[in-house]
């Protein structure tokens, strides 16, 4: 299992290379990327802010939960922070399992939990020159 969150650009092949051995018949790689358009507006780029000291632990917890469900800890999750251009990879999730069903389930679990729980915030920059914070999710279990 490998998780990381930081400003270094993400290379898909590096994340992919972190998972899988000869017992794994299925490998799944998910890449999230900055889109050039959002809600009808032309996007110039995106800044990802994070609560670094907390985010690493949350990412670890998510990967551990996925590993338990999949019965495989052949999982690598990397999340990027800082300023990203359109088309750049913001998150990469690689999962390798003996059979495919577990890989799909674990991969989907990780990205959904990242969107729900990872303390990351997106400041979207538009070609028009303005920026705004994107709306997010309220993490479960955090309610008063």
């Amino acid at each position, binding site marked *: 299992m490998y998780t990381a969150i930081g400003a270094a650009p993400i290379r898909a092949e590096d994340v992919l290379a972190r998972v899988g051995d000869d017992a794994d018949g299925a490998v799944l790689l998910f890449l999230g990327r900055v889109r050039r358009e959002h809600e009808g507006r032309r996007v110039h780029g995106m800044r990802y802010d994070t*609560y670094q000291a907390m985010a690493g632990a949350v990412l670890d917890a998510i990967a551990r939960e996925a590993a338990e469900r999949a019965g495989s800890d052949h999982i690598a999750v990397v*999340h990027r922070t800082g300023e990203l251009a359109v088309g750049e990879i913001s998150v990469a999730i690689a999962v390798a399992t003996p059979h495919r069903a577990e890989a799909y389930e674990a991969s989907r679990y990780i990205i959904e939990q990242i*969107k*729900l729980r990872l303390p990351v915030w997106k400041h979207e920059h538009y070609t028009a020159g303005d920026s705004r914070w994107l*709306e997010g*999710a309220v993490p479960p279990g*955090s309610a*008063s």
Partner: protein
Amino acid sequence: MQVHFLLFALYRDLAGTEQLTLELPPGATARDAVDRLRRTGPGFARLPEAPVVAINREYAPLHALLREGDELALLPPVAGG
């Protein structure tokens, strides 16, 4: 007791700062701390009354008790991925 506040993203923009330390009475909850913070100045008053919080880097309910030196983070709804 001293509590260290952290503010992120939109909340940091509203408050105009990303961290500060305030003195709170013993027995204060996270909710008490947020109330105190919101009375600190006009920017702070724009923070929500019941934000998501983390105490010492873990999500916590607003009724959680604070202790000397705790790190209380106010987290806007998250948007990872």
